[in-house]
């Protein structure tokens, strides 16, 4: 059969940035499914709409998540993408790969699927894009035999992900990679077998720069911070000064005006009591300034995208927690939160929406957390104060 022409997609092979169309064409020579995938996409470009349907039940033995069923609505015309399911493969913490591991993944996916991947999906998994129902189990068998496992999907714990952390960053306030791996291993049941009202995402950033945007993209955001003083190396301050760095200009952006520069002595002075640990000065002067020594994380909860009740940024529920293996305090809190959410949430209600509906007062009491002024921007302005029955005198 003569190859179909794709004049619209061809235009996306032009230009300087790497072309996803060229990537697909690399596989289309070997894989009829990718040739059909390209032709289906060309049709979408003509019609300005999707040609994929909702998934049905597909999966691998024993799991409820990890595979996203996908069927084309033009399966008769493009039979090789009639079934074109996605497999989510749990990434190693921090997205590090030895070339041996990466090649194994490539070989398995070329054998069982389209050979097209996403490195990586928004949640963190390596995405294997497109295979048939009958290939799912054999593909999983090979993945498992080679040390890989699937990630989450549906109403389960989604694959946790973490920033590069102590592997390559001087700002790391705890071991984000170890914590990510630890939680992933600890909660395999929750990851693979969806039992909850809806999804639950965990993202881990080892400092307040939040390089994995956990505050916006996770139900539980774990963000590294410290409690003591920023460490200053005055020799390095002098080196920056002698190299013409605009130290005063940089320090002028301090949000609390707690840092100052002595131009005569070429020294930095910090009023640490008023520092909010925003990272600005440390980011700009990394040789001279470092995070403190008493390190841990702020635990925030509730972040989500707009569906249903608007997007939320996670908010503080524990201002500071030490995070050291085996992370018992964190896991204990996490399990209390899951139990409370699972018991009270409606179908497809994220934990942040449940707290919004029930109130922080109820949430804090029922999961056993103490209120703290660091949890709010402002205290309540309205007078609708709720009281627990024991807090008022009961008149019969």
């Amino acid at each position, binding site marked *: 059969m003569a190859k179909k022409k794709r004049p619209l997609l061809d235009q*996306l092979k032009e*230009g*300087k*940035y*790497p072309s*996803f169309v060229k*990537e697909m064409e690399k*596989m289309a020579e070997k894989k009829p499914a990718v040739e059909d995938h390209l032709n289906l*996409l060309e049709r979408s470009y003509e019609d300005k*709409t*999707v040609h994929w349907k*909702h998934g049905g039940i597909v999966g691998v033995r024993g799991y409820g998540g990890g595979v996203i069923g996908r069927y084309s609505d033009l399966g008769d015309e493009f039979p090789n993408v009639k079934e074109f399911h*996605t497999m989510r*493969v*749990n*990434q190693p913490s921090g*997205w*590090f*790969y030895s*070339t*041996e591991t*990466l090649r194994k993944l490539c070989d398995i996916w070329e054998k069982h699927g389209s*050979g097209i*991947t*996403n*490195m990586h*999906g928004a949640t963190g998994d390596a995405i294997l894009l497109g295979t048939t129902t009958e290939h799912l*189990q054999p593909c999983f068998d090979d993945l498992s*035999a080679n*040390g*890989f*496992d699937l990630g989450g999907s549906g109403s389960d714990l989604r694959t946790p992900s973490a*920033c*590069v952390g*102590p*592997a*390559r*960053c*001087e700002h790391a306030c705890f071991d984000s990679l170890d914590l990510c*791996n630890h939680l992933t291993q600890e909660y*395999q049941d929750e990851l*693979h077998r969806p039992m909850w009202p809806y999804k639950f995402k965990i993202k881990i950033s080892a400092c*307040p720069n*939040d*390089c*994995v945007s*956990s505050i*916006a993209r996770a139900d539980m955001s774990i963000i590294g911070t410290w409690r003591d003083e920023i460490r200053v190396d005055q020799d390095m301050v002098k080196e920056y000064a002698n190299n013409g760095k605009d130290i005063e200009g940089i320090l002028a952006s301090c*949000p609390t005006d707690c840092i100052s520069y002595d131009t005569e002595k070429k020294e930095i002075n910090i009023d640490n009591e008023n520092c909010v640990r*925003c990272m*600005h000065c440390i*980011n700009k002067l*990394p*040789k001279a300034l470092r995070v403190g020594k008493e390190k841990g994380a702020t635990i925030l909860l509730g972040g989500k*995208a707009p*569906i*249903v009740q608007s*997007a939320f*940024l996670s908010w503080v529920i524990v201002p500071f927690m030490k995070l050291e293996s085996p992370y018992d305090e964190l896991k204990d809190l996490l399990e209390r939160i899951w139990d409370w959410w699972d018991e009270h949430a409606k179908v*497809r209600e994220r934990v942040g929406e449940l707290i919004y509906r029930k109130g922080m007062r109820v949430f804090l009491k029922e999961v056993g957390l103490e209120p703290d002024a660091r949890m709010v921007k402002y205290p309540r302005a309205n007078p609708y104060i709720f009281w627990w029955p024991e807090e008022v005198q009961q008149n019969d």
Partner: protein
Amino acid sequence: MTNVAKTDIGPPLYKDQLPEIIKNNYGQWKYHEHVKPGVLKHVAENGDELYTVRVGSPRLLSVETLRWFADLADKYCDGHLRFTSRHNVEFLLTDASKIDALIEEVEAEGWPVGGTGNSLKNLIHTQGWIHCHSAAIDASGIVKSVMDDLYDYFKKDDLPAKLKISLACCLNMCGAVHCSDIAILGIHRTVPKINDEEVSKACEIPNVVASCPTGAIRPNPKKKSVTINEEKCMYCGNCFTVCPGLKIMDPDNDGVAIFVGGKTSNARSGPRFSRLAIPFIPNEPPRWDSTVKAIRNLVELWVENARPGERYGEWIERIGWEKFFDMAGLPFTDKHIDDFIFSVPTFRSTTQFKY
């Protein structure tokens, strides 16, 4: 059954995936420097130096390309590499003298090195028409078109601050774009079309009713289906997610909305949402010219006017939103004023503003 796959083994252990220099200096990094655009240098307490070369990728990669990355990592990096949360590939070198040869080899094949420091970061995005059932816009094609146009900003690092642009192809926002400097979002603008037969066969009516955030969906017992109050519908598509019989795609009316000014880092100012700048641009495959042009205008406006170090949203907060709309030449319309459940705190209850 023979040869049953082991379940619940979890991902490959990250420790086994790390290069020697990282194993040796794990948690012992002292500081880092920007060597040049796309190249970082991390220095350990013991003086060890690690160089990172960051390569932009379209996220959608063939196994052929991944194997080529692996070949490069074997040749230059002792057999290890990593990916970033924004789909970049990072090559990790210990020998500074090999950096330029690696960059030359990578760029000769058309893969750009950049995206560090005050540059345009690689665009993050969702599946779009490649593989999603609810996409209002394509993802990869728009990202390709925008990155082609803004290519130089990825290669250089002299922007006022970092610039993160993200795309989500519908407001489920698998890409969680809502805190980006510039967010490209696929939106629907028309009420789902009810296919009574499919609704009755494939959907749980109470779930469908409960899925609607505005209470616009009511049961229609006669047809074992539902009705939709068109005035209440805000085209979120949540009902379509739980019920395939309520198709929301509409090629003539779906398109792009652009939001600006979000961030997630805590540096200086706290994390914040992106806000609506342009409510609608039609789908224009294959190169989305109007969207590309609109984003270039937004980027250039910020480049010309922001102070050094100011993220997009920090710049707007300083000058004020009314100034931003004036300077951008964008009409401010009724679409820009929030009318969902948390709207009132976004209204301005002060006499302080600019002309």
